[in-house]
């Protein structure tokens, strides 16, 4: 039982890191540009599909992954120039709607290009399989790779934002757009770069999860809301917050699913417990979010209003 608990703890962390990986680009765009991008999920999906195609063409997942990065960067650039650029000064409502429209467009386009059947990509031989953990418990190698990628992304973002010149500008931009304009920084091209970079992060996440998750036209949507939950809980604009929130959501979700019913059984009879468990489990993440926002209306690490 203790072993299992530790393993589930690990699984929870792992799921959290996966969520962070997916939400990272959104954190950047949302946090720094105060821009609500519902299309983040579909860009992530495009990343996964491109990874599949590039892997098939090149015959190598690694090459496919590498090609996906500039490709999604381009997707981000095109979208920024065509649509997003016109929306920065608009209210959140307009941003939500325009990107809702983009979700429809891109989802349908993906279905037209790649079809609606799920696709897959091969994991390189040396990354497949699993390593023994404790007793009969094993851990998939590729999961370790995903964890590594998530941690690297977190570290990289943190370094870029706190330790580099462009990061300083970003933070200044987040704090005060007029000021940064006054400093002579071309905020427009800065935003274009951030947005394209955010799209690339989304594409990277899509390509990273393609070997373990289904690549189908619904994949973007299924993570979109979770990604938003993560950055809203974390507090908008905070990479640290997003990371903490992702881990928290991962843990609450995983531990709640595996140990919630056991806890419930301690306080009520088994059939009522399993019924209650089934009702509560899918709501856990949302309950968590509601509680956190009720107590801290700007999220865990958000600026206090």
């Amino acid at each position, binding site marked *: 039982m203790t072993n299992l608990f530790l393993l589930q703890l690990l699984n929870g962390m792992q799921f959290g890191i996966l969520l962070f990986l997916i939400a990272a680009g959104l954190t950047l765009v949302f946090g720094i540009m105060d821009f*609500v991008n519902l299309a983040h999920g579909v860009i992530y999906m495009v990343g996964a599909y491109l990874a599949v195609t590039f892997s098939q063409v090149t015959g190598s997942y690694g090459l496919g992954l590498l090609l996906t990065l500039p490709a999604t960067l381009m997707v981000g650039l095109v979208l920024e120039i065509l649509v997003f650029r016109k929306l920065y000064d608009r209210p959140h*409502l307009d941003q939500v709607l325009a990107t809702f429209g983009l*979700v429809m*467009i891109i989802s349908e386009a993906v279905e037209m290009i790649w079809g609606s059947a799920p696709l897959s990509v091969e994991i390189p031989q040396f990354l497949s399989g699993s390593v023994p953990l404790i007793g009969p418990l094993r851990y998939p190698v590729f999961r370790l790779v995903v964890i590594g990628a998530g941690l690297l992304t977190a570290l990289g973002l943190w370094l870029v934002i706190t330790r580099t010149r462009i990061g300083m500008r970003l933070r200044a931009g987040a704090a005060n757009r007029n000021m940064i304009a006054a400093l002579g920084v071309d905020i427009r091209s800065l935003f274009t770069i951030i947005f394209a970079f955010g799209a690339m992060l989304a594409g990277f996440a899509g390509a990273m999860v393609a070997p373990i998750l289904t690549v189908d036209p619904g994949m973007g949507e299924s993570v979109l809301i979770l990604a938003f939950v993560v950055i809203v809980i974390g507090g908008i604009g905070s990479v640290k917050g997003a990371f903490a929130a992702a881990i928290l959501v991962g843990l609450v979700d995983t531990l709640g699913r595996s140990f919630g019913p056991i806890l419930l059984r301690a306080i009520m009879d088994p059939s009522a417990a399993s*019924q209650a468990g089934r*009702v509560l489990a*899918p*709501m856990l993440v949302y309950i968590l*979010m*509601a509680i956190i926002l009720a107590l801290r209306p700007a999220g865990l690490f958000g600026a206090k209003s």
Partner: protein
Amino acid sequence: MRIIPTRAWAATALFTAFAILPFLADALDDSYLVVIATRIIAYAIAALALDLILGYGGLVSFGHAAYLGIGAYSVAILSRAGITDLGLHLAAAIAGAAIFATITGAISLRTKGIYFIMITLAFAQMGYFFFVSLSAYGGDDGVTLAQRSTLFGQPVLESDRALYYTAFALLLGLYLLAVAITRSRFGRVLTGTRENPVRMRAIGFSPFRYQLTAFVISGCMAAVAGVMLANQTNYVSPAFMDWHRSGELVVMVVFGGVGNLLGAVAGATVALLLEEWLSILTEHWPLLFGVILVMVVLYSRDGLSGLFRRRT
């Protein structure tokens, strides 16, 4: 101020069109027209409800489909218990929505902006998953309604036309109510808070009470739409509460022009007809719909009626 007569004209024209539609359907020998119009009216009620808080209160609720679900499940649950009266269905829907809106609104209104959008979405998702797990009512398979609600014990609503006119009467009543609210003292406080909450506090208002009240009124109105929708489809399922549905309601309001109650009605009509029409043109209709939506957001801030007004 000079717009009001025009709008009164437009309202009269639109509602007259709705009123004579069944006769048109007769003349064209197309009874399905009444069916789809009933659905349009149900959504128009929901869009109207959303516009009250979104357009006038500045509160972007991305979870209003939850109230459609509450209204629809009120019909399903009461019917299962043998209670079929429409009045009681409406009362239960309104009561249920009021409770849900009071609790979730009190929490949500502590937040602002994007946090508000997301927390209303979160609460709607909770409602969605609650009904998905509710085995007694079919879970996500939903419940087929054996019959529609009754009026005074009579199954008059089984006639599509009677259902249509009932829905129409509710729409008209709620529209007039919403117009009255926006012009009332309460409406002025609500709009003022959207314009400048700090200013409102500085003249002695506590925005929270007014926003919460508006949120509850809006939720109750949307639940009425849910009751009509359940009767129109004879079927209730959690799919009514899907987050996409919430998004579509916002789209309807925006199509009609935010803060324009008649526009909300027109927006619902246009959005549904557009969806219907595009889906006939091509099976890839979401792509076209998405393009239109992006265009409207980018280039017409007053929605479709804005385009219209500019031309006249």
